[in-house]
């Protein structure tokens, strides 16, 4: 069952045509990854899905698993997406530095009113990232890069999204933390959440992904299952160091 279907997405920044006719489909329960070099347009795709950049497309349809209703999310403002069940852990983490860890997480649950459910999810996030629990009263700005990344992912989970989008979750992390983050991505997916993952770390992303798209100068150049792309000689040469 499709969750997100995009046909011919285009994004322009002034004269720069950053995304060219990108089409992609995300099925329920999948981890889909978008890989590509710096500047290939990966973030633009994910940001246009979230409604943060102006985009054109033939269609951009989200089908909520909650009620099986399909809605067009093209051109809708960002604040409506999270109510539909889409959330984003943005590139650069974008945690709020002067708010505490717990306040950042509560902000992620802003649209919800079920205080029991929020408390439950707070515990769930703390069980995924025990370090956040230790630092719950600390300001976001005092966290290390890895902890901030965990907070950004945790905050995106707090809205109980059906589609979780992660933009470069491994960027700037020590290798041991990268493994941990990808382990957690698998765990979140195993609990039934669909994930769209944008990554420069193609090897790690392809290993966890059910389906992958390779973006080159704004257009999809290749797509297939994670395993297919891992073994594709072109992908190996370009992104996996031979």
């Amino acid at each position, binding site marked *: 069952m499709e969750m997100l279907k995009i046909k011919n997405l285009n994004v322009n920044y002034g004269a720069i045509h950053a995304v060219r006719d990108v089409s992609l489909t995300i099925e329920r329960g999948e981890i889909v990854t978008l890989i590509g070099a710096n500047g290939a347009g990966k973030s633009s795709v994910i940001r246009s899905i979230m409604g943060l950049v102006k985009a054109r497309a033939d269609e951009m349809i989200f089908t909520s698993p909650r009620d099986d209703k399909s809605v067009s999310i093209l051109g809708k403002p960002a*604040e409506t997406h999270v109510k539909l069940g889409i959330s984003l852990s943005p590139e650069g983490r974008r945690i709020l530095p002067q708010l505490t860890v717990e306040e950042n997480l509560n902000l992620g649950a802003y649209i919800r009113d079920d205080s029991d459910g929020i408390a439950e999810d707070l515990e769930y996030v703390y069980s995924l990232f025990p370090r956040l629990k230790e630092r719950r009263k600390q300001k976001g700005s005092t966290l290390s890069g890895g902890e901030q990344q965990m907070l950004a992912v945790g905050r995106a989970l707090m809205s109980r999204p059906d589609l979780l989008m992660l933009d470069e979750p491994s960027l700037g992390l020590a290798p041991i933390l990268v493994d941990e983050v990808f382990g957690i991505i698998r765990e979140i997916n195993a609990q039934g959440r669909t994930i769209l993952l944008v990554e420069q770390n193609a090897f790690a992303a392809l290993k966890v992904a059910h389906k992958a798209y390779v973006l080159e100068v704004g257009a999809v150049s290749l797509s297939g299952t994670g395993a297919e792309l891992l073994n594709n000689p072109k992908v190996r040469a370009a992104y996996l160091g031979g």
Partner: protein
Amino acid sequence: MELNIFVQHFINALSLGSLYGLVAVGYTMVYGILRLINFAHGDIFMLGAYFVYFATIVYKLPWAVGVVLAIIGTTVCGLLVDRIAYKPLREAPRISALISAIGVSFFIENFAVVVFTGMPRPVVQPPILMQPIEFSNGVRLIPLGILVPVVAFILVGALLWLLYRTKPGLAMRAISFDIETTRMMGVSVNKIIALAFGLGSALAAVAGIMWALRYPRVEPFMGMTPGIKAFIAAVFGGIGSVPGAMIGGLLLGFVEIMSVAFFPTLSGYKDAFAFLLLILILLFRPTGLLGEKLEDKI
């Protein structure tokens, strides 16, 4: 200085300072979120004073009703200012909104001259607020002098509770750091901005009403000087910080009243002290007492 006189100066300073503080809070909230100096804020304060004047003195409504109506009317005006003069400029360069703010300020002042006439009108104070209370040690206080700081502290306390203990407060603090990320969390940014304008205007209305009672008259330009001084108080306390604005207001009130109390010959320079203070802060501590360093802001 006799105790009696000192206590009276102290209460005066507390009263004046908390009025500056109440107005300063409105500047600081809007600045914190939009990085905009809402020059019309002093004029919103003036509208609060006029509305209560019309409600209670012209239309003879009871004070309690008049005060509530004045607060509601002023809040609506504050929201309209945001809707008409600032909201269309959210994506425009910051200087455009600043110019718009100056325009709105002139507009409200001159509109007030046309509608209310430029003539100052006397405010009849309710006698219950003016009946001096005499203490055994000779200290005499009027109830109004105590009422003003009490009301101001309660309101600022309530505002802090809202900012730090409620969801809209969390959203307001979040927006001041990163609007885009806050939107992504499902926050309707324009509603939260309107809330900040509404709360700031309501507090300015209360300050305007109490100002009109203390200096018993209203006139269309009465918001200019207190508005500028409250702005100085907000900068002094650290613009963007609500407790800072209140502290800045109180300190400014004390500087003004005490300088005149101890050096009566300098009374002509009363207003100059506020600006001297502003120059000194900007030279030596531009982030103010409780202000954050700018580089911390994303």
